[in-house]
């Protein structure tokens, strides 16, 4: 009888293994989904789509397929980049590199199909939208391939030229994000869109150079001239903070010229706080990968505040 009671009490004390398994599975599932989104770079596509939505909100553009096209194009480019750099990524981000290696085939096919769908949707938006969607793909090819075969001509890969490497990435990104929704909706290019282009251009340029900080040793070894390689971490901080402040100054000028409303300016300015903090931490904290990731998410406050302030 006593034994029976003890057994019953044990049954009550021990959690049901099936429930525990279910809970574990439910808890693990989001982690797994997030892992797939992060490692496959699909989250970059989501961020790009959200940024296009924010541009559409600021410029008051009608609804269109532009966010979807931008998201698909971005996913394609980043997925290809992950695939190209899978070997060099192994030292920096082993888990991601392992994931990419394991799903190499699927990731490439998915990226190819994604770009095919993006260009199809872009073609629906007209020639300009189509051209804007083609440009990032072309630049990706030029960026990664030895487009000038003779090194004695003095041109290396675009990747190896100071400022130009990050500027190209930033220009391609900013043009896609800002002008794609304009092209799809056949809206005119006005001052507000130019300011937005500069905002995203400088933001992306800063992001690219922050990422370059963790690759200093490798970039120096292969002769890629980035801001941290040429100027060192200390001076890189000053340069990038100056660019971030320049971005703020452009927004203030836009406000004073009545190009943007105050609510739009406040929302966009929230996207400059994150970069300022990350730049300040450069060289002061060891987790450079974390800093890069933090910078990628630094525009999330814009996406949150903009709809709130808009309505």
């Amino acid at each position, binding site marked *: 009888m006593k034994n029976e009671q003890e057994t019953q009490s044990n049954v009550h004390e021990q959690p049901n293994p099936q429930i525990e398994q279910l809970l574990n599975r439910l808890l693990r599932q989001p982690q797994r989904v997030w892992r797939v989104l992060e490692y496959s770079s699909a989250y970059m596509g989501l961020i790009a789509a959200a940024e296009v939505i924010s541009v559409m909100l600021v410029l008051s553009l009608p609804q269109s397929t532009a966010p979807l096209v931008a998201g698909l194009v971005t996913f394609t480019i980043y997925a290809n980049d992950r695939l190209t750099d899978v070997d060099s990524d192994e030292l920096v981000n082993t888990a991601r590199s392992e994931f990419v290696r394991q799903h190499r085939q699927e990731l*490439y*096919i998915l*990226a*190819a*199909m994604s*770009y*095919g*769908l993006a*260009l*199809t949707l872009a*073609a*629906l938006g*007209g*020639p300009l939208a*189509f051209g804007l969607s083609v440009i990032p793909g072309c630049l990706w*090819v030029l960026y990664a391939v030895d487009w000038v075969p003779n090194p004695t001509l003095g041109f290396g890969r675009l990747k190896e030229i100071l400022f130009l490497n990050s500027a190209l990435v930033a220009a391609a990104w900013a043009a896609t994000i800002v002008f794609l929704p304009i092209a799809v909706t056949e809206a005119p290019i006005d001052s507000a869109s130019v300011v937005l282009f500069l905002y995203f251009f400088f933001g992306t340029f800063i992001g690219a150079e922050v990422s370059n900080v963790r690759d200093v040793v490798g970039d120096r070894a292969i002769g890629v001239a980035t801001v941290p390689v040429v100027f060192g971490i200390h001076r890189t901080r000053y340069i990038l903070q100056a660019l971030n402040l320049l971005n703020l100054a452009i927004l203030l000028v836009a406000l004073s010229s009545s190009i943007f409303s105050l609510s739009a300016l406040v929302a966009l300015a929230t996207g400059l706080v994150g970069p300022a903090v990350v730049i300040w931490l450069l060289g002061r904290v060891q987790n450079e990968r974390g800093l890069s990731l933090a910078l990628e998410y630094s525009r999330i406050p814009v996406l949150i505040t903009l709809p709130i302030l808009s309505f």
Partner: protein
Amino acid sequence: MMNGVLLGTIAIGVTGGLLAWRERPEPGSVPLAVMLAAQCLWSATLVFKLQATTFGAKIFWLNMSWIGVAVIPVAWLLFSLEYSGYTKYVRFRYIAPISIVPTITIGLALTYQYHDLIYLSEQLVESGAVSTPQAAGIWYWVSGAYTYLLGIAGIIPLLGLVRSDVQAFQGQSSAILVGLLVPWVTNALYLMEAMPTNGVDPTPVAFSISGIAYLGAVTRFQLFKTNPSPKRYARHLVFDQMQEGALVLDNNDYIVGMNDSAAHALNTTRTEALGSPADANFSSNLFHSHDTSKSDQTIIHTTDGNRSYDISMTRITDFRNRTIGRVITLHEITEYLQQQQQLEVLNRVFRHNIRNKTQVIVGNADQIETNDTVDQVEKVIGSAMEIEAIGQKMREVIDVFEQRRTHSNPLKLHNLLDEIITATRENHPAVSIEYEPGSDELYVPEMLEVVFSNVIENAVIHNTHPEPHVRIEVSADDKTAQITTKDNGPGIDDQELLVLERDTETPLEHGSGLGLSVIAWATDIADGEVTFEANEPTGTIVTVNVPIQSTPTQE
């Protein structure tokens, strides 16, 4: 409807193009990616033309579509050539001329308003009154014919692969041909106005089927993963670079193919020998003997005696099993024959000479036990010393063989001979040795020390003349030093010389020791020659010709 289908072709073309692009540098990957990109451009421009609301915009996009139209056949031909292994034609010098017509086409399309070479009347085309072919100018048809010409040119190398014995290649090339034929047939039907398309060229739509076929070739038949391109080169490579000489003869015994090794063996060049009768090459005093006595082998030797070849013959038959020629392979076995002869000599020394001497020792030891005579003791000692001498010679042989594999240092010939002659004079004061040194600056391979010591030793030890005399002379030209040793001894037994000349021994015909063999082997390894002649009135003349070596560098 048409708009939707064209959009679908863009999605498929981009996906297929990116999949092909990833496979760089696999043969055919880049031209295929370019072809699919051009197809997407063509589809996209037609979509924009359909979307356009003004006449000018419609004509603009119609003309822009010529870029895709013009690029596709060139890319197709390059793809076909690369994929089937004709990569030597995928170079600027060939690409430039085949791109002339497409370039002119694009140029004419972009300047359409100044001529009527492309359209007789673009208004008629776009008004829907007539289709493009009805209003086509002369260059429209030139470009179309040229496109079909390149299309057919690209099919030819693929047809061979459809019949390939590798199943994957059959599948790949079949899928590629389907991918090509569908748009071509669609375009032909459009030009013949057999398809109601309201003036819109449906060819890019057919390219969506091409895209699926190409994707099928990539995924199902592993296009780019396994590729027939190396096959064409591999066969040539194996034939040209094989170590064995190989000759291809036709049924009339004319040489129709030959690799470098065969040219070297026949002491000719491929240019000279190709197209000439095989007999002329084989019987031009180059090969002086055929030996077919040993098993099924046919062994031939060059007249200079430096090289020997084992030849074999294989019939070449066609699909009806008729002989259409022969392949003759020449396998150089010079070294093998030398080693065989060396093993025969060593075998004889161990089996015969040492056994004889051992028997002498055993026999005399028995007699010593019973008679205890001084004479037998001397015989035992003598035999034991001869065994010791054989052992010494064996060590010399091993050293000589060893130097075949290792670098031999050059030595000054005068110093070498002077040292040997001085030592011989000390050991054999009764023999008069005359030395006529040549130049003081002659260097010869180190291994020749064993040659000269054996030559001089033989001339001195075996000299039974009452006034034994040996004369050593050195002469030289630019490349070769000649060392002649003349003695007045009894001369070398003919049997010994015959064995040396034949390079082989039998139980009944063999030499008496290792000395002559060591001389012959070491001279041969040093790339020299040795000859033996009778001296007048008695004795032997041994002449050693060796290449002069460069002065050793000071370290």
